[in-house]
C-alpha cells in the first residue's frame, strides 16, 4: 500500500492516498466541497464553474478544489471555517444566478436541482443584479428526446465533455465566447447518439431536459424504484420514476462494474411502450368473428383444452427477454405437466466463458481489446462500447475484426479468425498471449454463443491471468438463463413433434421472430403471450397479455453471467404470467408458486446453487470464475453466411442483416425514438459501389429472387468487398444473396 498523505479539511485530520483530489479528500473527512462542473467520469477536471473555491493555507488566492490533488500537510478550509472561502462560493453563486432565469416553479429540475440546493446552502439570499438578463429562444429541441434551455444553462460543460470524452460523438459543442457562449449541437444537426439521454442526468440545472418527462412530475410526487434494464444483455442498473402508478422516467443507477452510471437511450426512453396503443390487457380468443376479448376463466379453459389436446406435440418458443422465473414456470407447466419438451430457445451464451469471467469495468483497464464478430458492439451492448472507448482513451489498442473492421473478415468469418489467432504464428495472437490485461469480445451472431472466443481465450492462457477475460454479447438480454431455466424444469430429451399441434409463443421477441412465425404456419393452434396485439393478432388463436420487464419481479442474468434482480416498479394492467401459469399448472397437476420469489426459491436450488434472492441486493455481485470446460466443437455445417461469394457472378453480394440497437417491438412503439432507428440504407464497399456506378446517397434497388427493396446507398471505405449491409428492419424478405443496382 502506498504511503498515505495527511492533511486537514476544516480542522478535521484525514489521510488519503497520494493523488487524491481535494473534493474526494474533503469527502473522506466528512466535508462537502460543492461542485457543478466537476465530474470525474468526464475526464480531467476543467475548473470552469468555480463553485469549489477553497482556502489553502499558504496560498493567498482561493483555489479551485476540483483541479488540485492533496499534498502532505495541506490545510484546507471550506466555507464552513473560512470567511474567504464562504465569500468565494457565494460570489460564484451570485455570478451564476445573474443570468439564470429562476423559473424554478416551471422547471422540471425543480426540487432535484443542484443549483437550487447549493444556492440554498451557500448562495446569497437576494440578487443585486438589476439589469436585463441574457435571453435566448427556449426550449430548443436538440433532438426529439432532449430540449435545451440556454437561459438556465450555467456553462459547466458537462454535456459537451460527455459528448466529446465519453460517447465520443462530438455532437454537443460550446460555441461563441464570453457572455455569448452557448451550448449547441455541431452544425445544428440533431443530437443523434445512442447515449444522448445521459446529458439530461449530467446537467446540474434544468438546461437539458427530457421531452418525455417534461411537466410529468415533481420530486415530491414521485418515487424512484430500483430495478435492472432489460433492453440488451448488459443489464444496466436503473431506477424507474413512478408517479401515480405510471412509469414517468428511467434514470441510471450507478453500478461501478457494469454501467458506471451511464445508460443508453434505448434503456432510458423506451418505457412509453408500456402504454402502447395496442397493449393487450385482457385475453383474446379467436372465434368466427375474429379475436374477441374473453374472461381469464374462459382463456384458461381454452388454454387447458388446447394443451390437453396437443399433449406432447407442443413447441414452445421462448424470448430471451423473459425473466428466469417465467421461463422456468413455462417449463414446469409444459414439460413437467405435459411432457412437451420441444422448444425454440433464445441464443445462449456458452458456459465455457465462465472460466474467463471479468466485470465489464475491467475492459477499461485493458491494454489490448480484440472484438470479433459481424455486429458493431454498440448495436448489441451499447454500454460495452463506452467501456471499449474508455480503454482506448487510456491507451489500449482496440482491434475490431469484422466485415467493416480493422481486420476485415467476411460475414460469419469470426470463428475462423479465432482459430487463426490461436495459432502460434499470428501476430495479434502473440500480443494477446503476451498481454497482462487483454479482453476478447464476441459481437455478432454465431460463434457458438461465445464458444469460439472461449476456446481462443483458453488457448491464450487467459484462465490463469486475472486481468484477461472474454465476453459474448448475446442478442437477447436473458437468453442464457432462459435456456438454462427451461432445461432445468424437467429431465427429458426433446424431440421435434410433427405435426405441431400447438405452438406456444412466449414474449414479444419470439412473436416478432420470422422463424417462429414460419412455425406457426405449420401449427394447428397457436397461443401467444404478448404485450402487443399487432404482433400476434393475425395468427394467434389465443392471446394472453404479457407484462413488461418494468412490471415484473424476478431475475435476469447479464452477459457477464451476473444474476440481477428485477423489481416490479408499477403494477401491470393485467395479472402477471406467474399468477396465471400457477393456476394453469394446477389444472394439469403441476404445483407452482404464483410469484417470483416462490418460483426462484425452487429454481435456485437447481440452477443457482441456492443463492438466496436477497443476496442479489441492489447491486448484484459477480460470480467467481469457473474451471474451463471445453465447449461443443463448432459444427461442420456451412452456414449460409460462410459460403463464399460465387466469384464468377459479380452481380451478387452477401446480405448482412444486422439487428440495430434501436429496433424491436418496444422501440417501434415510441414515436420519439423514430429518429434513432437505422436509416433506410444499404452499406456497400467502395469497390462494389464503383463497379456498379453507385455513389453514396444514390437510391438503389436491393433484389433477390422475386423480392426487391429500395434503399439509399452508403459507400464505406472500411467494409469488405462482396457484402451488402442492411438493418434487419429494412431488409424485408431479402434472401442471403442479393444484387444491388442503381434505381432507374
Amino acid at each position: 500500500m502506498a504511503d498515505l498523505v495527511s492533511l486537514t479539511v476544516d480542522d478535521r485530520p484525514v489521510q488519503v492516498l497520494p493523488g487524491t483530489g481535494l473534493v474526494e479528500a474533503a469527502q473522506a473527512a466528512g466535508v462537502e466541497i460543492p461542485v457543478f462542473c466537476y465530474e470525474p467520469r468526464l475526464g480531467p477536471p476543467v475548473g470552469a464553474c468555480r463553485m469549489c473555491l477553497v482556502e489553502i493555507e499558504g496560498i493567498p488566492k482561493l483555489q479551485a478544489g476540483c483541479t488540485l490533488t492533496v499534498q502532505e500537510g495541506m490545510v484546507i478550509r471550506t466555507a464552513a471555517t473560512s470567511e474567504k472561502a464562504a465569500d468565494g462560493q457565494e460570489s460564484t453563486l451570485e455570478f451564476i444566478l445573474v443570468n439564470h432565469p429562476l423559473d424554478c416553479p416551471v422547471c422540471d429540475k425543480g426540487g432535484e436541482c443542484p443549483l437550487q440546493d447549493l444556492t440554498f446552502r451557500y448562495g446569497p439570499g437576494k440578487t443585486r443584479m438589476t439589469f436585463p438578463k441574457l435571453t435566448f429562444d427556449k426550449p430548443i429541441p436538440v433532438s426529439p428526446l432532449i430540449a435545451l434551455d440556454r437561459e438556465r444553462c450555467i456553462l459547466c460543460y458537462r454535456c459537451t465533455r460527455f459528448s466529446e470524452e465519453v460517447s465520443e460523438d462530438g455532437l454537443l459543442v460550446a460555441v461563441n465566447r464570453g457572455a455569448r457562449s452557448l451550448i449547441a449541437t455541431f452544425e445544428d444537426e440533431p443530437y443523434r447518439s445512442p447515449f444522448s439521454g445521459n446529458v439530461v442526468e449530467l446537467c446540474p440545472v434544468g438546461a437539458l431536459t427530457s421531452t418525455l418527462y417534461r411537466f410529468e412530475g415533481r420530486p415530491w410526487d414521485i418515487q424512484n424504484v430500483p430495478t435492472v434494464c432489460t433492453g440488451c444483455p448488459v443489464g444496466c442498473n436503473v431506477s424507474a420514476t413512478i408517479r401515480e402508478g405510471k412509469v414517468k422516467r428511467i434514470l441510471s443507477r450507478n453500478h461501478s462494474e457494469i454501467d458506471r452510471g451511464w445508460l443508453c437511450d434505448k434503456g432510458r426512453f423506451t418505457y412509453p411502450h408500456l402504454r402502447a396503443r395496442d397493449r393487450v390487457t385482457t385475453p383474446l380468443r379467436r372465434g368466427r368473428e375474429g379475436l374477441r376479448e374473453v374472461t381469464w376463466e374462459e382463456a384458461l379453459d381454452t388454454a387447458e383444452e388446447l394443451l390437453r389436446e396437443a399433449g406432447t406435440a407442443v413447441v414452445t418458443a421462448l424470448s430471451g427477454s423473459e425473466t428466469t422465473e417465467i421461463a422456468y414456470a413455462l417449463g414446469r407447466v409444459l414439460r413437467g405437466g405435459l411432457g412437451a419438451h420441444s422448444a425454440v430457445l433464445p441464443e445462449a451464451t456458452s458456459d465455457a466463458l465462465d472460466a474467463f469471467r471479468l466485470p465489464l469495468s475491467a475492459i477499461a483497464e485493458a491494454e489490448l481489446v480484440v472484438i470479433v464478430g459481424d455486429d458493431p458492439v454498440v448495436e448489441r451492448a451499447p454500454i460495452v462500447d463506452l467501456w471499449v472507448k474508455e480503454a482506448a482513451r487510456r491507451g489500449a489498442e482496440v482491434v475490431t475484426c469484422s466485415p467493416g473492421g480493422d481486420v476485415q473478415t467476411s460475414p460469419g468469418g469470426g470463428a475462423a479468425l479465432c482459430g487463426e489467432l490461436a495459432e502460434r504464428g499470428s501476430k495479434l495472437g502473440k500480443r494477446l498471449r503476451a498481454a497482462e490485461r487483454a479482453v476478447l469480445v464476441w459481437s455478432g451472431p454465431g460463434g457458438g454463443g461465445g464458444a469460439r472466443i472461449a476456446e481462443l481465450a483458453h488457448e491464450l492462457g487467459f484462465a490463469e491471468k486475472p486481468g484477461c477475460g472474454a465476453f459474448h454479447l448475446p442478442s437477447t438480454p436473458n437468453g442464457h438463463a432462459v435456456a438454462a431455466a427451461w432445461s432445468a424444469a424437467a429431465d427429458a430429451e426433446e424431440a421435434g413433434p410433427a405435426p405441431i399441434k400447438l405452438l406456444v409463443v412466449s414474449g414479444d421477441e419470439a412473436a416478432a421472430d420470422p422463424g417462429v412465425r414460419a412455425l406457426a404456419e405449420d401449427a394447428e393452434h397457436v397461443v401467444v403471450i404478448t404485450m402487443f396485439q399487432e404482433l400476434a393478432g393475425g395468427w394467434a388463436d389465443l392471446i394472453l397479455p404479457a407484462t413488461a420487464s418494468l412490471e415484473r419481479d424476478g431475475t435476469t442474468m447479464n452477459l457477464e453471467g451476473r444474476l440481477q434482480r428485477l423489481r416490479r416498479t408499477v403494477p401491470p394492467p393485467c395479472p402477471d404470467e406467474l399468477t396465471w401459469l400457477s393456476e394453469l399448472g394446477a389444472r394439469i397437476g403441476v404445483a407452482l408458486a404464483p410469484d417470483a420469489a416462490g418460483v426462484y426459491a425452487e429454481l435456485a436450488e437447481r440452477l443457482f446453487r441456492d443463492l438466496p434472492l436477497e443476496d442479489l441486493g441492489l447491486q448484484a455481485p459477480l460470480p467467481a470464475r469457473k474451471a474451463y470446460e471445453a465447449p461443443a466443437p463448432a459444427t461442420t455445417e456451412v452456414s449460409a453466411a460462410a459460403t463464399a461469394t460465387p466469384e464468377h457472378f459479380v452481380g451478387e453480394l452477401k446480405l448482412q442483416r444486422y439487428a440495430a440497437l434501436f429496433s424491436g417491438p418496444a422501440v417501434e412503439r415510441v414515436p420519439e425514438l423514430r429518429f434513432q432507428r437505422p436509416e433506410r440504407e444499404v452499406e456497400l464497399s467502395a469497390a462494389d459501389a464503383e463497379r456498379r456506378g453507385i455513389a453514396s446517397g444514390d437510391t438503389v434497388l436491393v433484389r433477390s429472387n422475386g423480392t426487391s427493396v429500395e434503399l439509399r446507398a452508403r459507400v464505406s471505405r472500411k467494409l469488405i468487398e462482396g457484402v451488402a449491409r442492411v438493418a434487419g428492419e429494412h431488409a424485408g424478405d431479402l434472401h442471403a444473396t442479393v444484387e444491388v443496382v442503381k434505381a432507374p
Partner: protein
Amino acid sequence: MASNQTLLTAGTEDRDLTRLEEYRAVGGYEALAKARALEPQAVMDEITAATLRGRGGAGFPMGRKASLLAKDTGRPVYLVVNADESEPGAFKDRDVMRFTPHRLIEGCLITAHGIGSTSVFIYIRGEYLHEFEVTRAALEETRKAGLLAGVTIVLHRGAGAYICGEETALLESLEGSRGQPRPRPPFPPVTGLYDAPTQINNVSTIALVPKVLELGAAEFAKIGVPSAPGTAVFSLSGNVAQPGNYERPLGTTLRELIYDIGGGVANGRELKAVIPGGSSVPVLTPDEIDTPMDYDSIQAAGSFFGSAAIIVVDDRCCMVQLALRAAQFYMHESCGKCTPCRVGTRWLVQLLTRIEAGEAAPTDLELLENVCDRMLGRSLCALGDFAVYPVSSYLRKYRAEFEAHVTGAGCPFVGESSIEGIIAPIAQHAHPVPEVVGG
C-alpha cells in the same frame, strides 16, 4: 542615468535587418554558432546567470522556467513563442518581428538547443499579417542558409482571440481546440503542448537571447537594474506627443519615458494618469511617475510592468469612459469558460454604462467595487483579474470623478474627452459584436 544602448532593436537604425545578409553583417547568428559549440546546459546557465526575465508581462526568469521542464519523460520537449500580442497599448513584439525577425529566429534556435528541443512553434496574432509574412520570409532565408540544423520552426497564426495570449489557451488553440485556458497545475513545463514538457516565452524574451550569448551574462547584467537586467521596448501611446516604440534599459523612469523620450503630454495638456503596462494593469497617478520601469519597482508602486505598454492619459479624458472602454474590451475577449470572468465582465460593462449615462445611484459604486472584489483572484486565468484592475484602480484613484457622474446628471466630460486617442472602441472590429449588454 539611462544609456541608449539597444539590444532588441540594435542595428535597425541604419540597416534592413529583415534580410539575412544584413543581419549577419551586424554579427547575426554568431551567437547561435557560439551556443551550438556549448553544451545545452551551459547555454541555459548563461541565460540563468543573466537573469533574463520574461518580457511578456509576468517577469518570470527564463532560465528558471526552463529548469522546471520535466526531464526524461519519453516525450519531445517543445519551445513555444508567444507572439499573440493583443493587449491594448502593446505593440513591442510587432516591431521585433517586423524589423529584426532574424533575432527572434536566432533566439529560438539558441533556446531550442539549450532545452533540447527540435520543434518550435511561434503563435502569431492573427491580425499581424505583415509581421507574419516578414517572419516567414526570414525563416525561409534561415532554412536556405542551412541554419536550422534539424530544428523545425512552425509559424502559427491565431484567429483573433486575446485569450490565446494566455499560455495554456495558446496551447489549446495550437492543438486545434477552442482557445480556453487550462487549469494549472499541471503547468506547461510538465504537461504542455500535446502533454509534453513545453517552454513558453514571449517574442521579446526570446529575441534577447542572442544578445545574452553575444555579450555574456556578466556584460548583459550591467544593463538595466540588478533585479532585471537588459532592455525593453517601451510602447508609448495615448495622449503623448511622440508615440511609438523606444528601447531603453529596464529601470528607466516613467517621467523619462513620457517627457524626455516621448516629448511630454500631447498638445501641452496636463498629465492625468499613466497606465504603465498595457490596459490591464492598475493606473498610476502623476505623482507616481518617478517610478522606475522595472518589474519590482512598478509592482511596489501597486501596478505591473506588464507588456511595457505605457498609455498616457491627459486631463480631458473621462476615467469612467476609460474604464468602460477597457471593460468592454475584456468582456468581448473573455473566453466564457469560467463563471466569474464570463458573467463579471458583462456586469462591469452594464454598471459602467449606467454610471457614464448618469443613471446610477451612489450604491452602484459600492456594487461596482464589490463585483471587482468578487472577480479578483477567482477566475481560471488572469483575464478575470485584467478586467478588474483598470476598473477598480480608476475607481479607487479617481473616485471623485465617478461620484460626479452619479451625483451630477451624467458625464462631466461630454464633448471634450480625449478617449479616442487612448483606447479604441470594440466596435472597430470588422465583425459586428453581438449586443449582450441589454438596456
